[in-house]
């Protein structure tokens, strides 16, 4: 069939359109791969110099040029664990409240408020954490805890307000809305027939929740936790404000520590020699790889659930 000029023109534009769309779609893939390659390349000097011991050495001394990631990795993991221990049960009961218990009007209101927590920028959490929450922690939580439970190593050390525990609590607040939102969607996907059947047998609301809703949505709940984990582990500014930034590993939750992200934020612009810079980029690479693995798990996990539960997440 012979095409007239307008059809030719439109066909060319169609190719151009599809090409542009494909280009930008591939750009996202390219950036992901680019991040990995660039971080790898720039951390080579440190990898050559320190090898695998970089991951296990506690030493962090810019003056003598010796760097190890152990304290940063430890701090990242501990602050994340504290955050998840607090955020997961809290999000679970809040999601239940929103879906099962609250009257629609209140549920809507509370749901919106919780989601606003996610909109507050990280640096605001940092300001509030350092100037408002840390003094509160010191006076009303750390000192009383130390008075009554001071014999436990977790609660020893100087009660300064800042430190690992405070960072974990603020992180918990920051991931709460994300975890809660996914959990809420999971609970909404439980078919009401299943719940009603249980109510019909004379179960109380809590029994329906525990034995039906939670066990029905347990995979989705796990997905929510993985997503929250991914957020908490790379959170930067809020943690940088309150964790105290010291390169040490201590059993005490009151002691200052550091995370990979906070070390980058604090020291990167001060790094005055190539090996220091390279050590910092290596830290970044470690963080990127951790979040990469978490995202891969989350991606395939949620995909599987979506298949088995049929959309909505």
């Amino acid at each position, binding site marked *: 069939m012979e095409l007239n000029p307008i059809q030719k023109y439109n066909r060319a534009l169609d190719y151009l359109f599809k090409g542009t769309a494909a280009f930008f779609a591939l750009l996202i*893939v390219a950036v992901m791969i680019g991040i990995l390659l660039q971080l790898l390349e720039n951390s080579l000097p440190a990898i050559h110099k320190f090898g695998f011991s970089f991951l296990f050495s506690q030493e962090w001394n810019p003056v003598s040029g010796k760097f190890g990631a152990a304290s940063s990795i430890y701090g990242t993991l501990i602050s994340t664990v504290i955050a998840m221990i607090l955020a997961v049960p809290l999000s679970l009961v809040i999601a239940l409240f929103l879906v099962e218990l609250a009257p629609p009007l209140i549920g809507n209101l509370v749901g919106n408020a919780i989601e606003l927590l996610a909109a507050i920028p990280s640096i*605001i959490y940092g300001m509030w954490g350092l100037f408002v929450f840390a003094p509160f922690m010191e006076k009303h939580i750390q000192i009383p805890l130390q008075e009554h439970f001071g014999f436990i190593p977790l609660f020893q050390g100087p009660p300064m307000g800042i430190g690992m525990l405070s960072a974990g609590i603020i992180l918990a607040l920051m991931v709460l809305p994300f975890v809660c939102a996914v959990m809420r969607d999971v609970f909404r996907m439980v078919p009401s027939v299943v719940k009603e059947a249980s109510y019909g047998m004379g179960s109380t609301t809590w029994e329906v929740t525990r034995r039906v809703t939670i066990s029905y949505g347990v995979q989705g709940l796990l997905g929510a936790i993985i997503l929250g984990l991914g957020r908490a582990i790379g959170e930067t500014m809020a943690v940088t404000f309150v964790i105290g930034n010291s390169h040490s590993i201590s059993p005490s939750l009151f002691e200052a520590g550091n995370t990979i992200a906070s070390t980058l934020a604090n020291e990167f612009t001060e790094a005055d020699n190539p090996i220091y810079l390279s050590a910092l980029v290596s830290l970044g690479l470690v963080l990127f790889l951790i979040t990469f693995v978490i995202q891969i798990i989350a991606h395939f996990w949620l995909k599987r659930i979506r298949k088995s539960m049929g959309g909505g997440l």
Partner: protein
Amino acid sequence: MILRPSRNRKLFDVIMKIVSGLASFIGILFLTWILFEVVRKGAGALNISFFTELTSPAGIAGGVANAIIGTVLITLLAALIGVPAGLFAGVYLSEFGSYSRLGSLVRFSINVMIGVPSIIVGLFVYTILVLPFKHFSGYAGAAALAIIMMPVAARTTEDMLNLVPNSLKESALALGTPRWRTTLGIVFRAAKTGLITGVLLAVARVSGETAPLLFTAMNSQYWPKSLNEPTANLTITIFNYAMSPYADWQEKAWGASLLIMTGVLLLTILARILAKEAKK
């Protein structure tokens, strides 16, 4: 299963209801606590010179006008790059790559990129736009923010375009409308409100970002003359001022926090109201 006596079961039920209500209350309590403190401590710093004067050394009166302009410029430039790029990527996924292998690779990358910590994006941009040119720049800051926006915009675009009924597309194509016109003229129009929501959310997400600007735009005490040099911006100014020992700098940090928080929350609330409209 051993059934406990009915009274205990009901008591436990009531207790759990109270606990879940309390947990929600705790969430709201923290939200209001943060909002309240930022307003209380920030309101005092807001005056005319705060909005009109340059950042100044501690102890000397001044404002944060250059940082406000810098933040607006960097965010606008980032949106100009990141939003169209994300829109196109979303169009690809919804129109061309729904079930293709490439489509699922792109979708996977989007999920990974949304989860990458923003400081890592800053680090990446540092290695490609700061190291080779040997100086920090507002352009690098905008690039970092654009990279953060792109996957967010792509995902919402895909979701919103998928909501448009296929029959609408098919009728347009059947009338002989070329693909590009069908998408841009008809599908986009049908999904307009949803797309605007996505853009607003993406802008809101990056305008409060600090970490990606630390090693890219850095900060400056001068008016932003060109984005090809370190550029003043609100969030890094907050960071530097808050970490300083000077009371007047800390007060300005609170003022700037109030400003940025109000901006981000307004954008978010606007987007959410629009999103509700879109669903109707």
